[in-house]
């Protein structure tokens, strides 16, 4: 309050002395009026934000610019998804519909894996739901920072586009998140994901058979590199992943369980173990998200 009063006083047009043409408030002759950063007064929020804030009401264009690296990064991963879809016998329309309606990296790879393994619909639903439960946490963090324009039905498209990378980029951005900004950010990521799926599928048709057979490893290569990124920031991750891998192998190869349910059970076992061994150092999960997103280190996550 005090600060805002001072700032607007200084910025008000100062009365001039008739003889010298100099502000009479300045005591010294040659003193120039104090220079302050230009403050946007009439922006998105009217005149309610008085502090200098470069992220003031981010626009659609800013969202696009922030989203370009995500879209470019999604493209090859989505190509891998298109390749995998082709590999297990889905059509181009099915692969693209998958990306159009799901828009989730690990969830889609899991779903395709389970479809290929002839899992039941219930196992697929439960497995995909569980692997996507983390979005609840990310969505709660984004929802708390949305601007006043993102209300009611406008939150539906924002919710649809909530991915790990979108979360980490918007978490790094200071200030409120507006609807146009989120649409720009998520839209470009979505475009990269869907286009990559189609291109990957089509590229798969021109690859020679031997390479196509080898391309089945794409999905595992992706999982392995995701896991390695995780292990780099958090060494307990290898224990958690190792336990769930051993459990799943036992369930499938020795107990002969159906793949979908063994996956769900193994993931649950690994999760409970992981939550149990995870260090308790920092209290609120807000900081913990840095373990998922190593690049999202910011205090901006309010």
């Amino acid at each position, binding site marked *: 309050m005090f600060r805002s009063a001072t700032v607007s006083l200084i910025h008000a047009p100062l009365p001039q002395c008739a003889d010298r043409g100099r502000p009479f408030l300045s005591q010294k002759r040659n003193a120039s009026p104090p220079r302050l950063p230009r403050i946007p007064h009439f922006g998105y929020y009217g005149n309610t934000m008085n502090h200098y804030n470069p992220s003031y009401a981010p626009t659609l264009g800013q969202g696009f610019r922030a989203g370009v690296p995500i879209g470019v990064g999604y493209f090859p991963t989505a190509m891998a998804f298109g390749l995998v879809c082709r590999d297990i016998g889905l059509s181009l329309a*099915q692969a693209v519909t998958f990306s159009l309606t799901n828009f989730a990296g690990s969830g889609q*790879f899991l779903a395709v894996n389970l479809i290929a393994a*002839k899992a039941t619909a219930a196992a697929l639903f439960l497995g995909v739901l569980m692997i996507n439960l983390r979005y609840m946490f990310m969505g709660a963090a984004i929802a*708390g920072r949305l601007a006043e324009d993102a209300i009611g039905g406008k939150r539906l498209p924002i919710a649809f586009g909530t991915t790990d990378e979108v979360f980490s980029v918007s978490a790094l951005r200071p200030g409120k998140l507006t609807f146009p900004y989120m649409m720009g950010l998520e839209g470009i990521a979505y475009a990269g994901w869907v286009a990559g799926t189609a291109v990957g599928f089509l590229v798969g048709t021109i690859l020679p058979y031997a390479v196509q057979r080898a*391309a*089945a490893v794409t999905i595992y*290569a*992706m999982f392995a590199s995701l896991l390695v990124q995780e292990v780099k920031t958090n060494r307990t991750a290898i224990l958690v992943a190792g336990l769930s*891998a051993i459990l799943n192998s036992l369930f499938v190869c020795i107990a002969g369980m159906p793949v979908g349910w063994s996956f769900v059970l193994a993931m649950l076992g690994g999760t409970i173990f*992981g939550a149990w061994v995870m260090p308790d150092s920092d209290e609120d999960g807000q900081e913990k998200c840095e373990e998922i997103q190593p690049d999202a280190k910011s205090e901006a996550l309010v």
Partner: protein
Amino acid sequence: MNIWLMIVLSAFATFLPRVVPYYAKFLRKLPRFARKCMLVMPVAALGALLFPGTIVDFSPQWYAGLLGVAVAAALAWWKGTIVLPIIGSVLATWFALTCF
């Protein structure tokens, strides 16, 4: 088994956890253990997704998938990207499938 139905189910299972926090406020104050579970779940999923699939998918030549995953992990550790490990891994698997 209808693939279209599976796609719709998967879409629903993805959208549900995404949309709930935008309308429900109770999620902002979850018990600590539940929070931890949500954070650690994708890691646990990765382990179960990798094994035994890596070995079973290339059944007679089980070492091919294992080699591919090892190369991917090493490249990811070295470079920290996702494109290079995938390309290197496909090449390594192709090599193992054709040469051994």
